[in-house]
């Protein structure tokens, strides 16, 4: 039975080796690949950013065509495939790479399978050893019934055989459990560390390490959140329509730099959009204080209107006088017309 199993395993291993050999032989360089082939090779490693699960090599979208043109021009100018991949990651983020980048959270994708594979191999080796030993040990103690499984020292007084035998068995049992536990603990620790890894893999600072051509880092790129970073985050959230979250980010920014009229304005606007007119009004007032700009007057007028204050119409008219060509002016005119 066991022999048949070993034979099957050996056959399987042999078959994998043959397939791997054939695959390698097909890829072996006979002559240098043409430029078209090199473009296709690099494109196959990039994900089309406007498609679902298609590579740049496969996609017929306009973006993919543009990306292939970029690859061709960069290969012609002598850049290596790795440099080109880094260049694309600096434009579209690491998600454009079909192969995980190997730093930050992506490193897990490389490390985990290898680690689990090794742990599995070690586990199998230990199990095999454990099965063999008791089988050998069972022959020695004559007369001991076979059905007696794993006697323990605390419960059963035993002869000399048992004393020598038992600690060995215990050592054999423990490692399997230990490996499973250690693997689990490692996974949990990694999971706890993941938020940090995740952040670092997405920041411009970490992708600069990949060798991509980079511009000077800006305040927003620093890891500790300063007022400017919170403002940037708020703008991104606002642009996505998450006004509640945006207003929280602006508040954080204001805590670090309370006098920033720009952020006060943004906060008032976000609060209005998030349907918190009562909270928006004092912020809008503070933003408009000593800051007689069309935007400040507009937001104050809108906040007053949302709170049903009679001064709203006058403030909004003032805004229209100040900036008749403002992009928001037509909407304000409609509002005023409607409230008449």
């Amino acid at each position, binding site marked *: 039975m066991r022999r048949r199993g070993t034979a099957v395993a050996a056959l399987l291993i042999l078959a994998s080796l043959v397939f791997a050999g054939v695959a390698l032989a097909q890829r072996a360089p006979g002559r240098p690949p043409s430029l078209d082939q090199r473009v296709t090779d690099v494109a196959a490693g990039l994900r089309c*950013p406007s498609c679902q699960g298609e590579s740049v090599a496969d996609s017929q979208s*306009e973006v993919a065509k543009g990306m292939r043109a970029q690859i061709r021009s960069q290969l012609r100018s002598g850049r290596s495939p790795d440099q080109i991949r880094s260049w694309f990651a600096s434009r579209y983020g690491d998600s454009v790479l079909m192969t995980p980048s190997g730093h930050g959270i992506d490193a897990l994708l490389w490390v985990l399978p290898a680690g689990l594979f090794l742990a599995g191999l070690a586990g199998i080796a230990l199990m095999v050893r454990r099965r063999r030993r008791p089988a050998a040990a069972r022959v020695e103690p004559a007369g001991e019934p076979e059905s007696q499984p*794993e006697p*323990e020292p605390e419960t059963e007084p035993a002869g000399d055989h048992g004393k020598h035998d038992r600690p060995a068995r215990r050592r054999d049992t*423990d490692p399997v459990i230990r490996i499973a536990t250690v693997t689990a603990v490692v996974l949990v620790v990694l999971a706890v560390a993941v938020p940090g890894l995740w952040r670092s893999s997405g920041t411009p600072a970490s992708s600069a390490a990949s060798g991509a051509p980079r511009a000077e880092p800006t305040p927003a790129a620093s890891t500790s959140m300063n007022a400017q970073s919170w403002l*940037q985050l708020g703008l991104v959230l606002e642009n996505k329509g998450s006004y509640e979250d945006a207003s929280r980010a602006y508040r954080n920014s204001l805590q670090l730099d309370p006098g920033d009229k720009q952020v006060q304005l*943004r906060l008032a606007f976000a609060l209005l959009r998030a349907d918190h007119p009562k909270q928006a009004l004092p912020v809008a007032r503070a933003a408009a204080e000593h800051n007689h700009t069309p935007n400040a007057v507009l937001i104050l007028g809108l906040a007053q209107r949302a709170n049903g204050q009679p001064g709203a119409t006058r403030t909004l008219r003032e805004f229209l006088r100040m900036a008749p060509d403002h*992009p928001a002016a037509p*909407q304000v005119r409609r509002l005023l017309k409607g409230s008449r």
Partner: protein
Amino acid sequence: MRLGRIELGRRRLWAAGAVLAAVGVLAALLGYGLHTGPTQRAESMLVGRAAPRLTGRTLDGSTFRLDSLRGHVTLVNVWASWCAPCQSEMPLLAKTARTYRSAGLRVATIDTRDGVGQARDFLRKVGAERFASTSVRDPDGAFAVAWGATGAPETYLVDAQGVVRARRIGVVTPRWLAAHLVPMLETR
């Protein structure tokens, strides 16, 4: 012996618990990845970094360099005459360029994968002829890709120091301009 069995049973229980925890953690990671993936894609890698190079032949046959607009707040718009949303957006861009020209705004465009004749006709039709001298031809789409565009239209707001400050995927709206462009012009 019975105690031994219980002890072994406990150990197995621990091992099973550990494996279950590991599987749970992996599932949570997968879920997190699936949940956060698309939103990360929506943000441009360029925001907060120096604007990519934009130098080339324009629709009126001259040569344009984005560097020459340093000191001006600039909107860089990726468009094409065959793109319907771009057609609806261009009049607003032309109007915004006129309105805020005195405040220092300039508009440069990347006319991507387009015919020169069609593009010039289109600009004339929507009253944006002025853009011909700042519209860089991008016949193979390489400039749009250098700016990290995922389609057309897309618009990038570049400050007076040449740093990209915001990106708009899709048609520019008065609200987006009010939120991003206008404050930048006011604080200059």
